[in-house]
């Protein structure tokens, strides 16, 4: 399976005085098993782009070919598209509505007209995949859970549809550091387990650097850079000019390089920075305890 986006262009409020070009000639390809990070400042077109990927928005021009089918063409059955491409919105817990966790997660698969036992299996599997105890939590009201748990339940509802493409728009906004880490670990686990294509939209460069194997950089509706994280995050000035930053370890090490310290590399993770600092400082006898 692959997704090919070709020359995608979208105009908001076309023909109105405040019409604006939301996407301009966006072209990229994502393949099975790929984890794609999407970064860009607020209003750069990230959310508009992902809403096209599951057919919520129709482009002005261009195509989106998912597994050989151009989903922008008339006559495409949207239910088939959404079965294959799951989108988790920002603050998805606001969309929880059922009496119990189990019913809420079952809502999507039930709409796929699967048989009852298959729905049961999927619900159980999805709840376990997001790291919750199925037996314990199934009968709870989703509204009495903590913020992190609610978000997991909401994500489970999308995973239970077994989408081949899973899109997550800022899935950790507003979570505390532990819940943030847990939700990311869970997303990675689901990605490995389901071997889906995952798109992660995030303002957190550290998360993108750790998880993504391909990064799309949006600015003013255009795809201005794409590449592996180490390529993207080696371009501090270009990122800075479009309102983005480096992951924290890379920022620290760049700051040190500018002071003439001899560090080489891209330092995407805390471990990378730790190794470099250890190598540098251990030369000094006075520092050894």
């Amino acid at each position, binding site marked *: 399976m692959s997704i090919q986006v070709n020359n995608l262009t979208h105009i908001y409020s076309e023909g109105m005085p405040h019409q604006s070009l939301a996407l301009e000639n966006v072209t990229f390809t994502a393949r099975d098993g790929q984890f794609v990070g999407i970064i860009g400042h*607020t209003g750069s077109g990230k959310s508009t782009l992902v809403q096209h990927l599951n057919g919520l928005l129709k482009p002005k021009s261009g195509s989106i070919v998912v597994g050989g089918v151009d989903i922008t063409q008339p006559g495409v059955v949207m239910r088939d598209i959404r079965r294959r491409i799951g989108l988790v919105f920002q603050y998805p817990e606001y969309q929880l509505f059922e009496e119990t966790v189990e019913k809420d997660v079952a809502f999507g698969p039930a709409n796929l007209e699967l048989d009852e036992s298959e729905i049961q299996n999927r619900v159980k599997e999805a709840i376990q995949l997001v790291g919750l105890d199925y037996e314990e939590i199934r009968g709870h009201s989703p509204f009495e859970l903590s913020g*992190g748990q609610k978000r997991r339940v909401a994500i489970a509802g999308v995973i239970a549809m077994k989408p081949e493409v899973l899109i997550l728009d800022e899935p950790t906004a507003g979570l505390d550091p532990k*819940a943030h880490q847990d939700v990311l670990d869970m997303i990675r686990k689901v990605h490995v387990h389901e071997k889906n294509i995952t798109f992660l939209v995030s303002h957190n460069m550290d998360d993108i650097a750790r998880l993504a194997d391909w990064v799309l950089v949006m600015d003013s509706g255009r795809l201005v850079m794409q590449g592996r994280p180490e390529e993207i995050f080696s371009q501090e000035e270009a990122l800075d000019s479009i309102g*983005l930053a480096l992951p924290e370890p890379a920022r620290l090490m760049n700051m040190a390089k500018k002071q003439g310290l001899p560090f080489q590399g891209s330092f995407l993770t805390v471990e990378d920075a730790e190794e470099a600092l250890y190598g540098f*400082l*251990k030369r000094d006898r006075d520092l*050894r305890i």
Partner: protein
Amino acid sequence: MAEMIDIQDLVFEYTRDENQEPVSAIKGVSLKVEKGSFTAVIGRNGSGKSTLAKNINALLLPSRGAVYVNGYDTRQEENVWDVRQSAAMVFQNPDNQIVSSIVEDDVAFGPENLGVESKEIRTRVDSSLKAVNMWQYRKKAPHLLSGGQKQRIAIAGAIAMRPECIVFDEPTAMLDPKGRSEVMGIIKELHEDGITVLLITHFMEEAAQADRIVIMDQGEIALDGTPQEVFRQAEAIRDMNLDVPLTVELGYRLRDRGLSVPDTIMNMEEMVEFLCQYK
């Protein structure tokens, strides 16, 4: 009096539905915040930190105990305006706190409600917008601005009330990196200008910039001290679902490997300065 905020044995309870026992979101918190200080409040989701903030602004009132803001008891109904003028509040989502379709009207909304005369409102709106570097946008429509810009408008709206204190409830949670650094820059400037700042945040790097960090956990104060004192207790912090800033984490890891890296390093500048001694 030297205290901007004086919280005495605050208990805050609420009932989920009528037939249930009340739940305590805050279980006996006492906290004094000095005028002109910069305090960060951190804690896991559901730890009670936002409830605490809303008690400071009289959006919520104590079930037991008391909250004094600039000497005003929040329990007295006639004090509500004095409380809110003394301690303004800025929330997480800028879209929920902007009321007008033009930036300068939005900033004028607070002082208008305080009955400030129109000439004075003009002065306040201009100076507030300049303070957040948004004066050139005064005639624009807020919905056309970026998240960071909108949040700065919300802050200008708070400043225009001329409060002595501003309580920020996760003001950067929804912003991109540039928006976050813009808003943090403004918060630090306000503090330098003498405004008492209470910053609730999930970002440890932001908390490290305060003079004092208060950690809330399960409705109580779990730790309270300077960033150095608080972040020294990494294990306790992780047990409370929190984290330490990157440079503090690196310090731990390097000390674990037998290097005497000082545990006072709280930010990148200090780490680089330390490294430069060994060039």
